[in-house]
């Protein structure tokens, strides 16, 4: 039975089109092999694995529909980023920023968009643009602080 966000048609379609969905039950009095392998300490915990099984993203705690979809798009971006498929990573991060600006991963998506842009072009301007964007939209976020070193990068060449 699909309950909570899983009862939402948009979530159902997104998960089925983009992922292999896997559910593993947790038993606190007798932790399962998978709970131990992935060090699960609270539920719900969501892990995004690449097709080889490697973990790229983890979320702990309940997520409403838009936050869940934003996290899943962001997780796809992280898989691409981690495997140096930078243009595909950029597309996923841009989607989070454009379509889910109020969702949890949006500030980190801006940060990683800047990093992926820099790695792809070898031009530092995307890093500075990430800083400017974070200061403008998410000035209180940790990601704005992490981007602070990029504030000195000139935008004009």
């Amino acid at each position: 039975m699909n309950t909570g966000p899983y009862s939402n048609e948009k979530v159902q379609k997104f998960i089925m089109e983009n992922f292999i969905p896997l559910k593993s039950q947790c038993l606190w009095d007798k932790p399962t092999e998978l709970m131990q392998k992935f060090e699960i300490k609270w539920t719900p915990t969501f892990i995004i694995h690449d097709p080889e099984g490697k973990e790229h993203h983890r979320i702990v705690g309940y997520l409403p529909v838009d936050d869940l979809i934003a996290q899943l798009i962001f997780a796809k971006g992280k898989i691409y980023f981690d495997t140096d498929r930078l243009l595909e990573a950029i597309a996923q991060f841009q989607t989070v920023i454009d379509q889910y600006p109020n969702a949890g991963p949006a500030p980190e998506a801006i940060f990683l968009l800047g990093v992926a842009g820099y790695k792809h072009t070898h031009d530092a301007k995307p890093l500075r643009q990430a800083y400017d964007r974070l200061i403008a939209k998410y000035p209180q976020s940790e990601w704005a602080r992490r981007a602070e070193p990029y504030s000195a990068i000139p935008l004009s060449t």
Partner: protein
Amino acid sequence: MVEINWERDFKTALEKAKKSGKPIYHDFWFDG
């Protein structure tokens, strides 16, 4: 309407992921 067709076995999910190229969305849940 598309129902989510959950896998329950990690190895089966891995095989399907390798075959399809899709990542795995792994939900650890507790029914208590």
